[in-house]
């Protein structure tokens, strides 16, 4: 067993995906607490070179690079085989993977191949002196369970993007190791990649935004919705919403939906407009610093999770607020 914490460094073109920074940052903190561990990034793809600098800047002390044409397009079975082989060759104790589209299936695939334990969609990783506690939301965010993996190694966890903080790291001298990839020359895949349809530029990225205006069912009226969009424009904020707003038909895009079945946000300021505060929704806003909520119903649960509350009609309050800004 190598005293190493691995982070799967998912590539987003020539950039590491956002969650990689968050995982490297968390891993450095854990390595310090646990003592004597090194933090490594694992890159799979073709032409990985341009990513290395970014990873060392983010705190990777070792970079394992599997560079092969077979890894150009993501295929779960080929990626899984490659990661499995890397783990078997170098035997890290911990392997963290961002629960992205790729990560959320690569993680269980790899864990299955290695027959090890995997904690899913963690919102935190905690070292208690003896074991790593992987904090996992369940029952739609109603509870958070600690998952731990007592014997099997590596300990694996997939971590929800946008939850952990990515602290600015100091540059480190990294060791770069090229993984043996000859086996990929003849590896057979059960997946034929047919094509990719880009989702287009995501301008309304609610997970990265510093200010988020979130609309709920109570913001479905034309007047309230105008208030939401005007305020977001004025503040340069991203617009997010709850499942309940989608249900009204006002919006349909689930990519800006907050909640256990949607995304988590961690802005400096979150303004909830007409959001009732269902448990599923609350789970997605916990990392927000300042939470302001406007709701007609003074008994709305959202107020229990807010720093500031206003009981009133958003259609009237928002235009008044925009005027004052």
């Amino acid at each position, binding site marked *: 067993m190598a005293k190493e914490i691995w982070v799967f460094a998912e590539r987003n073109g020539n950039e590491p995906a956002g969650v990689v920074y968050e995982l490297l940052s968390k891993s450095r903190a854990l390595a310090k607490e646990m003592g004597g561990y090194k933090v490594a990034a694992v890159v799979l793809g073709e032409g990985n070179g341009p990513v290395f600098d970014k990873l060392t800047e983010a705190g990777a002390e070792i970079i394992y690079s599997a560079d092969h044409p077979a890894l150009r397009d*993501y295929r*779960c*079975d080929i990626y899984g085989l490659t990661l499995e082989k890397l783990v078997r060759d170098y035997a890290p104790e911990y392997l963290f993977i961002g629960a*992205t*589209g*790729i990560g959320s*299936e690569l*993680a*269980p*695939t790899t*864990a*299955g191949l290695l027959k*090890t*334990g*995997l*904690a*899913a*969609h963690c919102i935190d990783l905690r070292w208690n002196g003896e074991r790593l506690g992987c904090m996992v*939301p*369940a*029952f*739609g965010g*109603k*509870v*958070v*369970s*600690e*998952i*731990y993996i*007592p014997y*099997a190694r590596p300990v694996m966890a997939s971590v929800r993007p946008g939850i952990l903080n990515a602290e600015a790291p100091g540059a480190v001298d990294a060791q770069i190791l090229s993984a043996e990839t000859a086996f990929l020359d003849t590896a057979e895949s*059960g*997946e034929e*990649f047919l*094509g*990719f349809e880009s*989702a287009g530029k995501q301008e309304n990225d609610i997970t990265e935004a*510093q*200010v988020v205006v979130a609309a709920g069912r109570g913001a479905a009226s034309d007047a309230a919705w105008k208030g939401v969009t005007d305020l977001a424009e004025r*503040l*340069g*904020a991203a617009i997010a919403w709850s499942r309940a707003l989608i249900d009204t038909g006002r919006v349909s895009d689930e990519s800006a939906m907050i909640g256990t079945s949607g995304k988590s946000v961690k802005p*400096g300021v979150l303004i909830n407009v007409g959001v009732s505060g269902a*448990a599923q929704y609350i789970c997605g806003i*916990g990392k927000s610093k*300042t939470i302001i909520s406007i709701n007609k119903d003074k008994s709305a649960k959202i*107020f*229990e999770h*807010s*720093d*500031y*509350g*206003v*009981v*009133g009609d958003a259609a*009237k*309050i928002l235009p008044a*607020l925009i005027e*004052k*800004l």
Partner: protein
Amino acid sequence: MNIAVCIKSVPDPEFYDKITLDPQTKRLVRDGIPAVIGEADTHALEAALRLKEELGGEITVVSMGPPAARDQLMEALAMGADRAFLISDRKVGGADSLATSYTLSMLLKKTGTYDVILAGNESADGSTAHVPSQLGVWMGASHAANAVDVSWDQGIVVTRKFESGLGRYRLKTPCVIGVTGAANEVRFANVRTILAAKNKPLVIYSAADLEDLDENYLGLKGSPSQNGEVETMESSKQCVMITGTESEIAQKLADILRQSAVRKEEA
């Protein structure tokens, strides 16, 4: 086409706010909450029904759970599945996703050979989204999770959802697919199909009924991951209510926003 669908009986998400944590035992109290088929599983079943309508064949539903999970299998038969199998045994209980997918793979092996195995991408309660991928690993089959579309075009074609867009893949059969809620709209069961359900085969197996079971991979013992402490998500925020006329409220909100330094020109 021989299609299998894996379903899980879960507490109805409608009632998740009724779940409490017993402070003594640290166990979740979910008494009186009705069980349902997991939401994503219903989309997997719908995908199976559509494949069957297009290509013909038979749909087998499998599940692992307590004996009462039979009700959810019956519901799947009422929706149009042809036969159902449940593995219910203390030996397989307490399983994590690795042990669950092992048991399901053995149940599938016992009940037939399948071209396509569909499962809900994630369960409503545990939500690990591991089982489709790990089932694929155990069965040595190709597999895809996060499927927002499943269709037939010279083979099974799935669309995986990524952050940056949608990737289309053709999978070799047999294959396992984790189907998400975006894949389709689930039909209402037809009254005639509901009435026909009671005449369809529904078999409950115990662990002893499955051949070649490796007990090292079963249940709690076969689960590399374990449950530790459970916390309920309770907020500790103290909410300051802002009152006054609309104009006063607006002014106070503007001040708070300013203090948080988030106005556009300052950002």
